[in-house]
């Protein structure tokens, strides 16, 4: 019996009896099964899991399969997702966000099999939109990508634990990322719609719901700052500079998306100039470019749209094949730092209405 089969056998029991629920006992339990993210967990007792399930749709079947997650082919049922949410430390009220994120992970266009199999350091980023940001206490302001907020931290961690346990995305056999990245521990932020000059991100996508969840599979955020400009083009020149690197997969895979997380002050500068969210994307599409010859000098394989493959060497080519692949949202608090989040490439973001 191989190592993976041994671990799978251990995992087949629906419940496990421990001597106690001390951190040490839980560590030993997880270690034997090659589970966990390396941090202490909350013991997923029956009572706690029931409380977690009660935080979601009260009429839902706990055995409903939300998604089948590769490479293991695990059935992400509501109950199993709730177990991982308990372990992550989620308060029950955020459970619908975790459920919706797991549904997104199961969408074919997100290509989770590839996301987990690649050597690229990609991690699913969960972005929370709408009324639940305030209602559930997500941090969309100062430090929105950082620590110190239970909702952000535990939702991001719960999604990762689901990937580790249900999807089998353990580094090595289930997650081939050469170096990994810190966002593989927890990667969740929220849209700061209250400080955004534009409508909620999900409304612009046609998701007509008070709240929604986006999952984008990408790298860690790449910061760009501009402390002094009142000129939106001067600010976005920094974004374009951060985007036009050959070190990201978007350079050789033109179908990849970019998420651009503008801080409220940069977004306000754009809006004061009369720019919409789409105007920002169009401008970055037009300006984040390099000559075709430079791409060709750097890569033997270019997964480009046909019109890009046909470009002359002197033509300036964008870092993605269409402006619609540049997705702009507002997050963060005071200060003038924004970020771009490159894609793994062969994946598409998914935005779903938050389940009731």
């Amino acid at each position, binding site marked *: 019996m191989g190592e993976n089969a041994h671990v799978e056998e251990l995992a087949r029991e629906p419940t496990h009896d421990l001597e106690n629920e001390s951190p040490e006992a839980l560590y030993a339990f997880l270690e034997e099964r090659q589970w966990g993210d390396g941090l202490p967990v909350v013991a997923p007792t029956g009572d706690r899991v029931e409380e977690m399930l009660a935080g979601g749709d009260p009429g839902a079947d706990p055995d409903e399969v939300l998604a089948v997650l590769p490479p293991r082919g695990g059935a992400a049922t509501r109950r199993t997702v709730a177990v991982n949410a308990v372990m992550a430390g989620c308060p029950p009220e955020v459970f619908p966000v975790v459920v919706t994120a797991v549904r997104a992970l199961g969408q074919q266009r997100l290509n989770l099999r*590839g996301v987990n199999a690649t050597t690229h350091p990609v991690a699913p980023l969960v972005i929370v939109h709408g009324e639940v940001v305030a209602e559930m206490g997500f941090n969309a302001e100062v430090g929105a990508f950082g620590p110190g907020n239970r909702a952000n931290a535990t939702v991001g961690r719960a999604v990762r634990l689901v990937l580790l346990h249900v999807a089998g995305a353990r580094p090595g056999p289930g997650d081939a990322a050469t170096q990994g990245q810190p966002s593989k521990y927890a990667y969740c932020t929220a849209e700061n719609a209250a400080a955004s000059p534009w409508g909620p991100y999900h409304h612009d996508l046609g998701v007509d719901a008070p709240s929604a969840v986006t999952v984008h599979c990408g790298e860690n955020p790449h910061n760009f700052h501009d402390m002094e400009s009142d000129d939106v083009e001067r600010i976005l020149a920094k974004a374009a500079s951060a985007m036009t690197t050959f070190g990201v997969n978007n350079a050789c895979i033109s179908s990849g998306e970019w998420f651009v997380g503008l801080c409220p002050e940069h977004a306000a500068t754009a809006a004061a100039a009369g720019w919409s969210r789409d105007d920002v994307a169009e401008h970055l599409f037009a300006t984040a470019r390099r000559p075709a010859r430079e791409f060709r000098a750097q890569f033997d394989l270019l997964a480009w749209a046909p019109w890009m493959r046909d470009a002359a060497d002197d033509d300036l080519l964008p870092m993605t094949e269409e402006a619609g692949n540049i997705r702009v949202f507002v997050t963060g608090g005071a200060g003038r730092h924004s970020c771009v989040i490159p894609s793994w490439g062969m994946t598409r973001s998914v935005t779903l209405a938050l389940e009731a």
Partner: protein
Amino acid sequence: MSARILDPAGPLAEGAVQLAPAAPALVDGRIGVLDNAKPNARLLLETAAAGLAERIGGEVVRVTDKGAAGFNAATACEPQVLEGLSKEVRIVLTGSAD
């Protein structure tokens, strides 16, 4: 105090399979190559397949890519390609990585 906890991995989905155990012997020498679209995969896999065929007295009977949908290493193989391979060969070499 003892504690009973719920399993965080849960069951495998219906239809999910685990890797097959290694074959005890290469009794059937029909070898296929499935190019997974990584750089130099075909060269590496064809060379390895030829070496294996020589070693076991077999034959490389099919070399294929993943079909139209599998143009990139990150995209899945067309089901009909897998079906064809399963009928024609006993051993498939595939999956060159970075």
